[in-house]
């Protein structure tokens, strides 16, 4: 089977985990199908669905014109008919071209009594790969203020497979963000259960236990948070707790508040720009609902308020760096 092509290295990478998740869902449920640009015959720009067309045929691996609004709209229409589309954006940057259909059609259909949209809208997101201003987007804050859309972003292979399967089975529209820097990162290679499993949407995960301060984050920044935590433990003796949100909408408020009540100090870390980012929402939740538990003001660490620049020097300046996370954590611990 094509879905387990890379056998020599142990375990699956994040992209292989997503691929396997979609493959398994398409195998167990014939209403699941894939739609997007270059997804069928070519196997996707990142080769995530390579070979699927041989096993599932062109009717279930639908290559479209360059028409993101049509991709989203067609996915919605098919969902109304009881199908379970997995629609791909070649890069999440192009989700802007489907924004109207997502926010006006997909998000509101159930609420308007016009039918549930059980559909997944997925694609590679994220900066740090020298992709420039149009291949590096993190789009979650564009959609955070739209009720009716779920948002998910995994940072491990186990979660990637479990969450994509959960997203496909979820009765509501799910935006599934895949950080492209994590796709083939050897560090994330992981042996996954051979039996069917899902990871519940709406639940955060504790990526590292700690008692001194919390870093609340998701996606590729989970790895930066873990690296920073190692340094802080070694050099400062600080026990940092890292919360991997995994689901960005609806947020796991309980997990956010629990970690704050445990460590009394919180940093919110994300890769999209600071202003209007999801960190503002998380900080507000903490301020409103756990103010008495705080020993320090919540600190946000995020990218600067600029488009994502191309040159490595500038992109590194743009993005949160491990050294900056370490410094911010020290400030938080000292306060």
């Amino acid at each position: 089977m094509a879905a387990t092509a890379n056998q020599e290295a142990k375990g699956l990478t994040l992209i292989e985990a997503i691929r396997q998740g979609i493959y398994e869902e398409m195998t167990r449920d014939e209403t699941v199908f894939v739609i997007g640009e270059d997804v069928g015959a070519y196997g996707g720009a990142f080769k995530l669905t390579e070979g699927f067309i041989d096993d599932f045929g062109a009717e279930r691996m639908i290559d479209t014109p360059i028409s993101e609004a049509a991709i989203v709209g067609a996915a919605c229409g098919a969902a109304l008919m009881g199908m379970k589309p997995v629609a791909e954006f070649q890069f999440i940057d192009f989700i802007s071209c489907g924004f109207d259909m997502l926010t006006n059609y997909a998000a509101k259909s159930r609420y308007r009594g016009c039918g549930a949209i059980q559909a997944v809208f997925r694609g590679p997101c994220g900066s740090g790969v020298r992709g420039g201003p149009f291949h590096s987007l993190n789009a979650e804050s564009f959609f955070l203020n739209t009720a009716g859309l779920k948002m998910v972003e995994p940072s491990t292979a186990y979660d990637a497979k479990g969450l994509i399967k959960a997203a496909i089975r979820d009765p509501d529209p799910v935006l599934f963000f895949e950080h492209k820097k994590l796709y083939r990162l050897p560090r994330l290679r992981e042996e996954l259960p051979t039996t069917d499993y899902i990871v519940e949407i709406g639940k955060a995960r504790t990526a590292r236990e700690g008692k001194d301060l919390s870093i609340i984050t998701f996606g590729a920044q989970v790895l930066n948070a873990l690296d920073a935590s190692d340094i802080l433990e070694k050099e400062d003796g600080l026990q940092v707790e890292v919360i991997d949100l995994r689901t960005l909408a609806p947020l796991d408020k309980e997990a956010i508040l629990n970690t704050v009540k445990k460590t009394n100090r919180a940093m919110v870390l994300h890769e999209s720009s600071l202003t209007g980012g999801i960190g503002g929402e998380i900080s507000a939740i903490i301020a409103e609902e756990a103010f008495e538990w705080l020993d320090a003001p919540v600190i946000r660490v995020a990218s600067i308020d600029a488009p994502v620049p191309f040159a490595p020097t500038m992109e590194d300046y743009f993005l949160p760096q491990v050294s900056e996370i370490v410094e911010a954590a020290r400030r938080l611990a000292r306060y």
Partner: protein
Amino acid sequence: MSAKTNLKKSTEPLSCTRETSLSKEQFLELYRFVKMTRMFDEITVRLKRQSKLTGGVFTSLGQEATAVGTAFALEAQDFIAPLIRDIGAVFVKGISPRTIFAQYLGKANAPSRATDVQFHFADLEKGFVGPISHLGDMIPVMTGILLASRMKKENRVAVAYVGDGTTSTGTFHEGVNFAAVQKLPLITIIENNGYAYSTPTRHQCAADNFVEKAVGYGILGLSVDGNDIVACYETMKRAVEHARSGKGSVLIEAHTYRRKGHAEHDNQSYVPNGEIEFWAQNNDPINRYERYLTTEKIASEDEMQKIVAQVSELLESELAIADEAGFPEGISAAYEVFDNRIVKPAFKKKILEK
């Protein structure tokens, strides 16, 4: 081209095409639906003036034949996504007036739970897909309906009703093109009624006719007099046969005229003097059809009057039934954002609670 030049200057009063296979029963059914459309609109205008309606009132005055005639050529398994001026097509698909009244009145038992306006609701069992306000968006959605239908080996045709203004949107292009490439049985009906809100068609498109777009998409294009209900039916029948037999999508341009403003509040100050009256006097689709039914000896005045009386009685009793229902509780707003078995309702934050 101006809406006025659509009209052939003729001393003969306009009627409808004689080339048809419709039976007497079907002729009368068409009459019933087209009258129902106009009379429904008259009631909603009345309700608006009585301040019984809070939302906008959009009527199809002068263009009722297009929606009714085209929808009449569909089968039960076919799907439609109508525009605000296609209430006739909604009736033809078997949606009851009481349901639409409930939507207009914002009643709790309306299909949208009064979360949305007018006929922004759906009845998928009857092949009615709920439209949204963003013009053109329904074309990709209908494309998806047809992709699903193909995967499920169902034999469905889907119709997206759009206006002349819709053709300027990106979703119109993306949807029509995608359906064309996939050879899907999608029929897009452009109801060219002369105006998009206040914008005349010459500011919408530089081509002489919208149907010319079909050439660019590589699909069948058909043009029809949208105020000839029989021609609308026959043209649509041809389009449905083409689509259903696997030959691909169809674009129909129906030439008609919008005699009311965009909505009831619109005073139509942008319309040249005399244009509305000209159409009302010379090219009213219902007058034309009545003349046709009489001169072709299909129906007598008595028969037509009987139908009108029945429709009037039906609409008033349907309105009364719809009006009996209550309005939604405010808290209903919190439900069904997501499946509430999984995500709890979006209740208002209790600011005063500690």
